[in-house]
């Protein structure tokens, strides 16, 4: 089986079978990453450009390392050094990068739909590394990989996503992915950050943390962005944390084998208490490791689309 599109723009665009293929392939790469020599020659001679229009350390380094493990030549372009500041259009920037010989372009952009726009105008493979408040597909894939590895399946699980759903591309991608597998998705947070319309996607919405966490198999805690404070989404970080911060006491509402996830970077003591983040249920650092394997799988499979 092959993926059907040359690009990975979002989870929305993938079928369940394609997601299973990516997760299975990532399993193989995870074994590779445990070896003494972690590099494979799979994509030797090809070039990847990480085109980041928004600051990112975690996602960019994860992609960069995944690319190097696949023997790709890697170029990192970030907005501060790009010609965008000189007024160049997004399409022109992408065409110039393509003219340098890029086979893969990983795009991170603050505008929703920016990778889609680029994909329409270039032949190289485009991978969405997070666009605006739309999607962050590789994060959802690595989250699914982590859940599957820990719990053994996705089907039928109860999974809570806590926090700023409205502005979270991570949450959106996870919702689409988990829905395709028939998991029960619960969104928890204040009504200002958890829009009711999302019930149209089959999720359940909770504003009370304890009832939302009741019996869940996994809790995904989202980062609360400090800049939301003072915009009327919640009165203060203190009040947010009192109502929706994940503490070990609250976590006791969840299934006894529940896992705790966070896409990073964490605000300790705000959305998640330190003892939870560092506790036995936390799989936060495993997520980081799994991210490498999943991104290797994605690039490897996308390269296969062209063969």
């Amino acid at each position, binding site marked *: 089986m092959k993926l059907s599109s040359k690009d990975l723009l979002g989870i*929305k665009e993938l079928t369940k079978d394609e997601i299973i293929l990516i997760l299975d392939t990532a399993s193989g790469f995870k074994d590779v990453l445990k070896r003494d020599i972690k590099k494979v020659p799979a994509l030797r001679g090809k070039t990847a450009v990480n085109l980041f229009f928004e600051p990112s350390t975690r996602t960019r380094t994860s992609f960069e390392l995944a690319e190097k493990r696949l023997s790709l030549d890697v170029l990192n372009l970030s907005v501060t050094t790009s010609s965008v500041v000189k007024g160049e*259009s*997004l*399409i022109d920037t992408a065409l110039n990068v393509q003219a340098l010989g890029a086979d893969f372009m990983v795009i991170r*952009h603050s*505008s*929703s*739909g*920016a990778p*889609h*726009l680029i994909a329409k105008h270039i032949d190289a493979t485009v991978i969405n590394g997070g*666009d*605006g*408040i*739309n*999607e962050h597909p590789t994060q959802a894939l690595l989250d699914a990989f982590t859940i599957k590895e820990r719990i053994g399946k996705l089907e039928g699980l109860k999974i809570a996503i806590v926090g700023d759903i*409205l502005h979270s*591309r991570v949450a*959106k991608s996870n919702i689409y992915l988990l829905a395709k597998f028939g998991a029960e998705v619960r969104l928890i947070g204040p009504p200002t950050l958890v*829009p009711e*319309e*999302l019930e*149209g*996607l089959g999720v359940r919405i909770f504003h009370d943390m304890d009832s939302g966490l009741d019996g869940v198999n996994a809790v995904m805690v989202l980062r609360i962005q400090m800049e939301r404070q003072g915009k009327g989404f919640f009165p203060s970080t203190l009040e947010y944390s009192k109502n929706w911060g994940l503490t070990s006491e609250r976590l006791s509402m969840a299934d006894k084998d529940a896992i705790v996830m966070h896409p990073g970077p964490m605000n300790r003591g705000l959305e998640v208490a330190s003892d939870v983040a560092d506790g036995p249920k936390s799989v936060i650092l495993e997520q980081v490791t799994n991210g490498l394997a999943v991104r290797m799988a994605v690039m490897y499979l996308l390269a296969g689309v062209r063969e």
Partner: protein
Amino acid sequence: MKILIKNGHIIGPSQGIDGIGDILVEEGKIKEIKMQDEKNKSRESCIMNRESDARTINAKGLYVFPGLIDMHTHLREPGYEYKETIKTGTMAAVKGGFTTVCSMPNTNPVNDNSSVTDFIIRKAIQEGACTVYPIGAITKGQKGEELAEMGIMFSEGCVAFSDDGKPVMSSLIMRRALEYSRTFNVPIISHCEDISLSEGGMMNEGLLSLTLGLKGIPSEAEEIMISRDIALANLTKGRLHIAHVSTEGSVRIIRDAKERGINVTAETCQHYFSITEKTVEGYNTNAKVNPPLRTDKDVNAIKQGLKDGTIDVIATDHAPHHRDEKLKEFDRSPSGISGLETALSLSLRLVHEGVLTMPQLVEKMAVNPAKILGLNKGALKIGSDSDIVLIDANKEFKVEAERFISKGKNTPFDGWILKGMPVMTICKGKVYE
């Protein structure tokens, strides 16, 4: 030059004309109208065989309308000539069946003083294919702070005032504008949007905006301001005209206000009764418009509002943009649809669907705009300007944006097959076909 239009189906609602007849045009004026004798319908012709020196146009099978009037056009000149000019915009208008357009003031510089008004009028006389009436800004620089010199702009030729695109957020300034404008008996055209509520929004708010990751604009951003402006119209007895109505709630609020006898009129645009927010899918910047495209229930309510008279006017909100601007990220792309060359055909769908009768359509696109703006236009009567458009209501054609005369090729209707189009426009004494 004499022109004789023979055997067309003449629709002139202002004079109660609806039937087969002939129109004679001479020296840019309508000289004579003669309807076919009811008793002798079989006879091929009725008048003016004696007019052998006239250019004769056989309008058999065609409708003959008064030239259409667009009371909401962005001609972009001065300042944004790369998007559109008075020349190209009026040529597009004539192709679309319009003989009069009213240009919105959001040019650069803003039309907030008589020298800009004067420039537009002179340029339109020199280069315009059709008649142009400028709309002046309500406030200086469209900033919503200080009233612009409405009286001077009015005497220079402005027919209405609007801070289009930049709603007057101060209720006090809006009150003053509605009061002061009574001196000249001109309408204040309000772009109703509570910008503190719509802040950063790019499309209709709902599940679709969430799944596209595009910040939404709730219907209430429009409805709150319509409610406010209606309250102020009631307070001031000024003449309020609501621009581009897009929501079900807005139609309901305006209907209630009219029932209460408040002096308010309203327009919608062809896209608000033709397409929904779904057109935005795939980050289609040609479907980015403000107010945003809404949902099926809004489309149906707009149609109902047109049918029952709540909405008086169909205006184009012709908003041409350069190709490069629409080839940007969705949030960086400007709002607007190039509308002059598709508005009539899209509106004719309402007639084909049975929402409007042909005379009602002419009321919405010619008679009512003239009435609201106090123009001596929009009527087929002896002595009036020979602004006439001939329509083939059944001719099918494919919309090809690249072949638009307008510089703005930004349309979500590219590739659509539409039924009914203008085949000839007579304007300023010239025949365009």
